[in-house]
């Protein structure tokens, strides 16, 4: 067997072996090579460590005052010279209400953002409209006035003439 570390195409064998995804025959073959190849041994050990570490890692619980401490830190960093927009942002995202309350407002904020985008995307349309306001479609007006002439009696019967 060729050493997988020598050819890029074979590097997968190494990863698959560590992930136990290699076919039994290939596994046996590779293990024979592994015993006599220090390079592969080192890589397999390293890879196993990474996998073990990932497996063992579980995200720790977030402390109850995490948000408060985060905001305090942000505030401290920005205290010196905060631009107006940052103060404004902070007022929105750091209101004097508990986190769960403003968290419930996030969908609303997102909806507003989407709406704003939708409006900005639609802007070409409103521009069209303004242009059309200047240049009215005279043929459509003509057709409408024709309908006006048809649908509305030419001489309005004066009230009480009946």
């Amino acid at each position, binding site marked *: 067997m060729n050493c997988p570390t020598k050819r890029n195409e074979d590097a997968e064998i190494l990863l698959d072996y560590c992930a136990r995804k290699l076919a039994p025959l290939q596994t046996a073959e590779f293990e024979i090579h592994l015993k006599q190849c220090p390079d592969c041994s080192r890589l397999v050990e390293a890879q196993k460590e990474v996998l073990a570490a990932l497996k063992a890692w579980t995200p720790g619980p977030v402390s109850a005052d995490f948000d408060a401490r985060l905001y305090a830190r942000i505030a401290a960093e920005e205290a010196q010279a905060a631009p107006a927009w940052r103060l404004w942002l902070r007022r929105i995202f750091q209101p004097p209400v508990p986190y769960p309350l403003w968290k419930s407002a*996030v969908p609303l904020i997102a909806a507003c953002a989407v709406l704003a985008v939708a409006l900005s995307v639609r802007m070409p349309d409103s521009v069209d409209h303004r242009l059309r306001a*200047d240049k*009215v*479609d005279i043929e459509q*007006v003509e*057709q409408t*006035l024709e309908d006006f002439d048809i649908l*509305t009696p030419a001489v309005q019967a004066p009230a009480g003439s009946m």
Partner: protein
Amino acid sequence: MFVCGAVSPLWAQSRKAAVAPRKPPAPPKRPQANPAKELDRFAKMSPEDRENALSKLPPQRRAAVEQRLAHYQTLTPEQQEKFKQRLEMMQSLPKDRQDAVRQKIQELRALPPAERRKGLTGDDLKQNFSPDEQTLVREAFPGMKNLD
């Protein structure tokens, strides 16, 4: 920083979604702007703008437009509103039914009053026109309304 993080993917997504389908539709021959609004816009134009628009029509059609507009502008706002409702009802009909209504009204208008009255109450109107269409036809002859 929160805003950028939370919104930018959404922004990109909705922008893509909103832009893609709006691209190709070929401009229709007669733009489908709301006819009543288009008429109001025309009626409220400055004399220069109106002159500019009218100059695109041959003299005869131009004269007809000017005459009808003058008539339209003698109506009270309530009467104009009533016409817009009728126009809307008309617009809601299929093209061929719009033409049938127009033709029927013009037919009746050409008749002497007695014949016209018969036409407005006769079977032809009841059998060949939907209730909405009948309303449009009858309302074109308000003087006849109470005579049947």
